[in-house]
């Protein structure tokens, strides 16, 4: 469909509509409060007058003669019987009234001041192309304080604004008198005063009289928006239901009519004023139905009306919902769940969704037979089709086709078939918040049963996804160009390396790490049967090498099995995560098997853990393979080992329980002693403080010194207690395996579970708020000892006392508040940064330029290196090269 451009915009000017302009753009003066008569035709000069445009598909607009799509509607107007204050400008009117003379309407400044400020304002506007709001506010404030007019010497009175739209004047009899008379300023009075302001004075009041005269803020004519803006809907019972705006306009017209009649009939002042105020109320709520000070106008059902301001404001308003937010076709959203059997490049799409999302495929002589089959299968069975688009543009909905055979036979080259999504199709997969480019990646479709999107666990880090109810979106690129771009640039495997720090962002996590440790640790050997099981389940067919142990039984080491999956020609040397950081590293002969060496694709020494295959690890084996062998190989490696690890883990069995944090009695006694000592030491320090013999630390007060000393004693005791517990928790403990290999948790967490939870803190200090001079009424006033200030002596294993539990909750709550605050502020900072950098581009000459072609850098990053393809930000990793050359040649 060709789109007709109604107008080409080359400049925008904001201003106020003058009464004349409103009349000029109006096609009808609306005078009747009714909309339709009994037979359903619009009443002329009513709110649904045909000249206001049409919303009826059959009808033509009475003004422009166009039908529904083409006619954008035309404004009408209402002549208000009396002026009405526009609520949107009440503050501005108030400020102006205070700054001008009540008699002569000149600004309350001397001629010299006027001249001086005028020059300043003009100069500022010329230089910055915007109004000097600070200066104008200053002028308004200054003028409001003047008591006698410098021009006509009239005594000024104080103006009061009673929200939302009523103005009062507090008139004094003389300059000195204290008695004031409160007099209402009617909108007419207000308008009269503002009419008399000269254009020159307007400038000082912050108004450009060319585009907005101040008196236009008090309405005499009200525009009536076209019906397209307030369409009526016909319910099933053929009862018309009008838009909220129409309801409001009906009220306005009705009261306006009554007001005019009363004025014309010479009704008493009181009645006229009441009606005037009522009209003001209706116009106010027409603009904004949520102004403070007046009750919102309600529908018969009691629901507050949604008027002009409400349409624009807030999350569901025009700006945030319709202008900043767009909805798209060919997309879907559902809960995500993990599937380790998928490749990182794949996404599991529920069958139901795959039958709703379609890809248009042009019929050619090559694919006509295939597409005929899809049509025969129809929209209700899986690899089928939903629509056919014939050459002339006619859409055939296959849901309503009775004889599919006929349609299939009528298919000829040039038609387009909208076929179901099928395995291998490329789609975009996205999780909000989309903070970096890896938040939207392309995946290949795998149609699956059930109702969730399935994804490989290795792509959780880039999406920052987990499975506690997260939902994700999926989009289907329709054109071949879009599909090609998605496939070559956005495919998950192309995003393994992060552009933030040249290293893999996609990598093994959690259980994969535990499994890799269990598989590759020194003492793990497997029989032929076991080894073959593992290899087969990886999805690859590989021959077993010579067994490491031949007698009495053939046994293969875990390292041998893992080595089968490392690509040939891979060389790697690094310490493992479990490394104890011994003072002198024994390298290959490390007792803990923490020195990982891979020579020509064979894992010689060391265990594989987070440092070798994890995500977000610098200098990992995965990163080495990625850089040396490319995305394809790295993806294959990752897919194969993760499947292998799943099999290994479920074969060996791995679980965590209460026993993992259970320590022997002697350990408990030792920990108790440590904590007793610490508490005693704390008490002694407090005593010293109370006696004033505590030695002050340099640059600290006594209080600070005490706090620091106590914190140090307590945190040291917690660490020692944790270490004691750690001594009794060895590498055969699953929780320790997870902590040491980097799968999940830390030794600190384990210490908190097994030994002592330690000091709880709020704002980086011991907990001190609560009751007067104490945290809880359980303590003496002024108590400073460990338990009263949030030291939790117990472990999670032993259980917390109610007081300890309370202290723990204090610390926990701070954590929650912090995350909530951090995400919102950092989210906004990110948004602004992205906005500032968004269309910067590297050109073919190597320069980095903005949208105007201005050079920002002569070469990208001043070194021309793409961080995603770099070795942790550097172009070459010398160590890796030396490693590769030296270590391999020495062995040969």
């Amino acid at each position, binding site marked *: 469909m060709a789109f007709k451009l109604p107008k080409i915009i080359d400049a925008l000017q904001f201003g106020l509509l003058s009464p004349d302009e409103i009349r000029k753009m109006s096609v009808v003066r609306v005078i009747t409060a009714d909309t339709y008569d009994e037979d359903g035709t619009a009443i002329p000069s009513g709110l649904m007058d045909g000249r206001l445009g049409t919303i009826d598909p059959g009808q033509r607009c009475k003004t422009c003669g166009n039908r529904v799509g083409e006619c954008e509607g035309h404004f009408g107007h209402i002549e208000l019987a009396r002026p009405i204050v526009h609520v949107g400008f009440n503050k501005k009117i108030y400020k102006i009234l205070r700054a001008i003379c009540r008699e002569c309407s000149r600004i309350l400044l001397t001629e010299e001041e006027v001249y001086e400020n005028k020059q300043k304002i003009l100069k500022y506007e010329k230089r910055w192309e915007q109004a000097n709001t600070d200066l104008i506010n200053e002028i308004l404030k200054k003028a409001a304080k003047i008591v006698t007019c410098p021009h006509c010497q009239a005594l000024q009175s104080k103006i009061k604004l009673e929200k939302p739209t009523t103005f009062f004047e507090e008139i004094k009899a003389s300059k000195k008198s204290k008695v004031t008379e409160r007099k209402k300023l009617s909108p007419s009075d207000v308008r009269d005063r503002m009419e008399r302001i000269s254009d020159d004075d307007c400038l000082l009041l912050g108004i450009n009289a060319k585009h907005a005269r101040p008196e236009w803020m008090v309405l005499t004519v009200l525009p009536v928006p076209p019906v397209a803006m307030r369409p009526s809907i016909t319910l099933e019972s053929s009862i018309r239901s009008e838009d909220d705006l129409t309801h409001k306009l009906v009220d306005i017209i009705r009261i306006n009519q009554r007001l005019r009649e009363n004025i014309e009939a010479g009704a008493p002042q009181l009645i006229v004023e009441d009606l005037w105020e009522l009209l003001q109320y209706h116009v106010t709520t027409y603009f904004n139905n949520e102004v403070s000070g007046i009750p919102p106008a309600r529908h018969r059902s009691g629901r507050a009306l949604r008027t002009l301001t409400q349409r624009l404001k807030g999350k569901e308003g025009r700006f945030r919902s319709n202008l900043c937010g767009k909805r798209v076709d060919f997309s879907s959203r559902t809960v995500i769940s993990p599937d380790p059997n998928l490749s990182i490049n794949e996404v599991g799409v529920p069958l139901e969704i795959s039958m709703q999302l379609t890809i248009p495929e*042009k019929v*050619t*002589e*090559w694919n006509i037979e295939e597409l005929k089959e899809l049509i025969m299968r129809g929209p209700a069975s899986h690899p089928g089709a939903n629509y056919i688009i014939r050459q002339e543009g006619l859409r055939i909905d296959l849901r309503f086709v009775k004889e599919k055979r006929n349609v299939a036979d009528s298919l000829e080259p040039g038609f387009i078939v909208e076929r179901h999504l099928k395995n291998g199709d490329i789609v975009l997969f996205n999780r909000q918040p989309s903070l970096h480019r890896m938040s939207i990646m392309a995946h290949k479709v795998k149609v699956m049963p059930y109702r969730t999107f399935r994804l490989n666990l290795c792509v959780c880090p880039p999406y920052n996804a987990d499975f506690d109810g997260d939902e994700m979106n999926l989009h289907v690129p329709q054109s071949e160009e879009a599909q*090609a771009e998605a496939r070559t640039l956005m495919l998950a495997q192309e995003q393994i390396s992060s552009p933030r720090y040249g290293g893999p962002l996609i990598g093994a996590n959690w259980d994969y790490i535990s499994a890799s440790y269990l598989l590759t640790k020194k003492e793990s050997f497997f029989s032929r049967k076991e080894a073959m099981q593992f290899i087969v389940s990886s999805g690859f067919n590989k021959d077993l090498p010579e067994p490491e142990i031949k007698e009495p039984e053939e046994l293969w080491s875990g390292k041998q099995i893992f080595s089968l999956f490392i690509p040939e020609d891979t060389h790697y040397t690094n310490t493992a995560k479990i490394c104890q950081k011994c003072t002198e590293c024994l390298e290959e002969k490390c007792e803990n098997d923490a020195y990982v060496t891979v020579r020509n694709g064979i894992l010689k020494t060391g265990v594989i853990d987070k440092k070798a295959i994890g995500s977000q690890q610098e200098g990992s084996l995965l990163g080495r393979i990625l850089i040396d062998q490319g995305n394809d190989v790295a993806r294959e490696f990752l897919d194969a080992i993760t499947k292998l690890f799943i099999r290994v883990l479920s074969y060996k069995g791995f679980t965590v329980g209460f026993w993992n944090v259970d320590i022997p009695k002697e350990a408990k006694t030792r920990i108790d002693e440590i904590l007793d000592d610490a508490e005693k030491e704390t008490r002694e320090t407090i005593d010293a403080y109370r006696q004033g013999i505590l030695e002050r630390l340099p640059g600290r007060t006594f209080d600070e010194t005490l706090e620091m000393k106590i914190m140090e004693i307590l945190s040291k005791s917690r660490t020692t207690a944790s270490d004691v517990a750690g001594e009794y928790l060895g590498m055969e403990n699953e929780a320790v395996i997870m902590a040491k290999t980097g799968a999940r948790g830390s030794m600190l967490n384990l210490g908190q579970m097994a030994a002592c939870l330690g000091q709880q803190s709020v704002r980086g200090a011991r907990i001190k708020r609560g009751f007067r001079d104490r945290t809880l009424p359980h303590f003496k006033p002024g108590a400073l000892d460990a338990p009263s200030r949030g030291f939790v002596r117990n472990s999670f294993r032993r259980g917390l006392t109610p007081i300890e539990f309370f202290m723990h909750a204090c610390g926990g709550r701070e954590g929650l508040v912090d995350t909530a605050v951090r995400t919102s502020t950092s989210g906004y900072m990110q948004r602004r940064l992205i906005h500032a950098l968004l269309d910067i581009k590297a050109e*073919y*000459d190597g320069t980095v330029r903005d949208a*105007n*072609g201005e050079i920002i850098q002569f070469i990208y990053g001043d070194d021309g290196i793409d961080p995603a393809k770099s070795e942790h930000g550097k172009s070459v990793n010398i160590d890796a090269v030396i490693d590769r050359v030296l270590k391999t040649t020495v062995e040969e």
Partner: protein
Amino acid sequence: MSKKIDVKVEIIADTIVVGPPKLTRFEKARIIGARGLQIALGAPILIRIKKDITDPIIIAEEELMKNVLPLTVARLLPDGKYQNIPLSWLIKGV
């Protein structure tokens, strides 16, 4: 603000003088997209390919890798100069 460049001047050379010596991933995506569209619209394919491969994008990628596409990459510099580079020159480096 810099002015928009309307005049375009072709650089004639027998080596690649504009941009990197090999096909960038963006050019690759562009070419596969354009050729994929042709194939999807029924253009005859230029290589022998397994019967079961029907996805135009996959076929286009295969054709690009086999260096059979008679296409030219126009690399435009911000100053309006440009070079027309035969695709085959860029493929050699890939």
